[in-house]
C-alpha cells in the first residue's frame, strides 16, 4: 500500500518564477488495484507520480510504502528501492536510442546481480505478449510511437516490480497499441500489483479502482 502525506513540490521557491506544482497531496493506493490520476495538462500529475516513484524529492511531505517512509531514504537507498520494487512507464517513453528493443527491455536488469543473458527469453516473451515478438531486434528508432511505448511497458515489467508507475502511458500511441497496453494493466492488477496511472484518456480512467482528480496542483476529489 502506498500513501502520501501532504506531499508538496514547489519549483524555484522564493523566486519570481516560483511554481507550486503539487500542494498537500494525500492519497492512498492499495495493492492489487489500479489507481488513476486525472486532470488537465499542467495540473501536477507527472510531478506527483515522480515524487511517489522517488524520481523527484518533495519540498514537503512523505511517501509511505507499507507504512515505511521511503522519502526519507538516502539517494542510494532510493535507487535500491526503485530497483527492487518499481517499474516506470514514462510520458516521453524514454528509451535509449541506438539500442534494440530487447536491449532496452533488459536494461533495468543491468544493475541487478543477474546474468542478463538468461533474461533474454523472458524479455522476448514480454515483447511477444505486447505484440512485438518480431520487432525485438529492431533499433528503437525503427519502431513507431505505439511500438516504442509497448517496449517501455515491457521494460517496466522485466524486473517483475510490485509497483508500476505509468505516467500518461497512452499519450502518443494508436488505438490498437492502447488496447494492448490497457489489457496488460488489467492483467497486472489481477496479478496483485499496485498500479498508479496518470492519464487524461477516458478509457484508461474507466479501469480505475480509485481515481484522484487533480486541479492546480491539488487533489480536487477522489472516487472509489
Amino acid at each position, binding site marked *: 500500500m502506498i500513501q502520501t502525506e501532504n506531499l508538496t513540490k514547489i519549483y524555484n521557491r522564493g523566486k519570481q518564477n516560483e511554481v507550486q506544482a503539487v500542494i498537500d497531496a494525500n492519497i492512498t493506493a492499495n495493492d492489487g488495484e489500479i489507481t488513476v490520476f486525472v486532470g488537465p495538462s499542467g495540473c501536477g500529475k507527472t510531478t506527483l507520480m*515522480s515524487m511517489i*516513484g522517488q*524520481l*523527484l*524529492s518533495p519540498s514537503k511531505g512523505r511517501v509511505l510504502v507499507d507504512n515505511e517512509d521511503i522519502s526519507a531514504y538516502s*539517494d*542510494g537507498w532510493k*535507487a*535500491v528501492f*526503485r*530497483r*527492487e520494487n*518499481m517499474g*516506470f512507464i*514514462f510520458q*516521453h517513453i*524514454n528509451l*535509449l*536510442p*541506438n*539500442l534494440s528493443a530487447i536491449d532496452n527491455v533488459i*536494461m*533495468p*536488469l*543491468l*544493475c*541487478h*546481480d*543477474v*546474468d*542478463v543473458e538468461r533474461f533474454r527469453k523472458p524479455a522476448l516473451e514480454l515483447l511477444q505478449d505486447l505484440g512485438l515478438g518480431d520487432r525485438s531486434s529492431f533499433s528503437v528508432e525503427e519502431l513507431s510511437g505505439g511500438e516504442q511505448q509497448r517496449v517501455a511497458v515491457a*521494460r517496466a515489467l522485466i*524486473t517483475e516490480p510490485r509497483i508500476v508507475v505509468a505516467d500518461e502511458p497512452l499519450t502518443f500511441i494508436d488505438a490498437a497499441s492502447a488496447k494492448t497496453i490497457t489489457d496488460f494493466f488489467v492483467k497486472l492488477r489481477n496479478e496483485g500489483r499496485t498500479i498508479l496511472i496518470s492519464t487524461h484518456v477516458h478509457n484508461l480512467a474507466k479501469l480505475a479502482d480509485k481515481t484522484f482528480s487533480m486541479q492546480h496542483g491539488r487533489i480536487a476529489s477522489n472516487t472509489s
Partner: protein
Amino acid sequence: MKFRLKNLLNYALGCIKRYKLRTIVVLVCLTMAATLFSSVLFIKDGLVREGQLSLKYAPDLTVQGIATGRQSYIETRYIDLIQRILGVEKVVERIWGYGNIGNTLLVIIGVDLEDPNINLDADYPIESGSFLDPQRNDTVVLGKAVAELIGAKVGNLLTIITESNQARQYTVIGIFNSESSIVNADTILMTKDSARAFFNVPEGKATDLMVFTQEVNPAYYQTQTSFVAREISELPNLRVLTKDLLASAQETTYGARSGFFSIVWYLILISVAIVAFNQTVVVGHESRFEIGLLKALGFSTSDIIQIRLTEGTVLGFLAGSAGIVLGVFYNAVLNAPVLKDVMLGWATLYPAFPVPFMVSAQSIFLTYAITVIPVLFATVIPSWINATVDPDIAMRGARA
C-alpha cells in the same frame, strides 16, 4: 556481485560504441597529444641514454688548456703534476678534433693503442675488418653510421680535409658498431700519432687530459673528485670538467627542450579536456538524459560513476596505446621529422643519424597517466554532478 560488475562493464563498453561522436573526438585529439608527448619522452630518454653511454667510459675529470680565456692545447708536462695529486689513479693525454668529409663534420679521435687500460672491445666493437694497426698511420676505423653515410667499406680510401684545407688520404681498415648511435654516427678512429699529424698538434701538447681517480667507496667518490678537481684548478691555465658537469650540461640541454614540448603538450591536453568536457556537458544532453534514466531504473550514483570511470579509462588507455604505438612509429620509422630538429638542434653540419630513442617503462606509465586522467576528469565529474540530482530533474533538463 559478479554478474552486476560484468553487466556494468558491458554497459560501459557499449556506451563507447554508442556515443560515436564523443568517442571519435576524444580519441583523435588525445591520440594526437599522446603521440607528440610520447615521441618527445622517447627521444629525451634516448638522449639521456646516449649521454649515459658517452659518459660510461669517460674519465672522472677532463682537463683542458686555457689561453687568452679560450680553450687551447694543453701541455703534456701537466701529466706528471696531476699524477702527484692525492687520489689520482691515472692521467692520459688525448688528441681529438673535427674533420670534414664532404659537408659533414665528424669527430676524429686519436687512439693510444699502447694504453693497457683502453677497452677497445667495449668502446668500439669491430663489426667488419680489423682495429687500428700501430704500425700503420694511414688507416682509420669508422663508426657504422659514418660508413653508411659516406658509403665506405673496408679497404676503401677515404679523403679527409684538415683545418688547413689539406686533403689527407686514409685506408678504412675496420668498421665498429658502438652501443651509442651518436658515436656510430660521428666518430672516426685513427692512431694517436696519425691524429697528432692530422690536427698538427705539436709534440708536448694534447687536446686535453683524461684524469681517472682511484677507486673509492661510492659514498666518497664525489668528495674525492671534488678534491682532485680543486687541486688541478690551482695549476695555471687549466680548466677542469667533471663527469657530473658534462652529464648535467647534457641533461639541461635536452631536458629544457623536452620541457618546452611538455608545455606545448599541456596546452593540447587542456584543449582535449575542454573538448571532452564540452562533449559531456554541453553537447551531452544525451548523456544527461541517460544518467537520469539509469537512476530512474534503479542504478545508483556509484553505478553511474563506475560506468563512466570504465568508459574514461578505456578511452584513455586506447588513446594512450595508440599514442605510444604512433610515437614509436614516428621515431623509429619516420625518424621524427620536425621534432628531431627541435630536440637535437638545427646544425646542418652535424651528420645525419637515426634519432636516439628509448621506450622506458616510466615514459609509458607517464603517457598512460596523462591520457587517462583528463578523460576521467572530463567524463566522471559531469556525470557525478548529473547523477547527484533527482532523476526527474536530470531527464527534464536533458529534454529542455
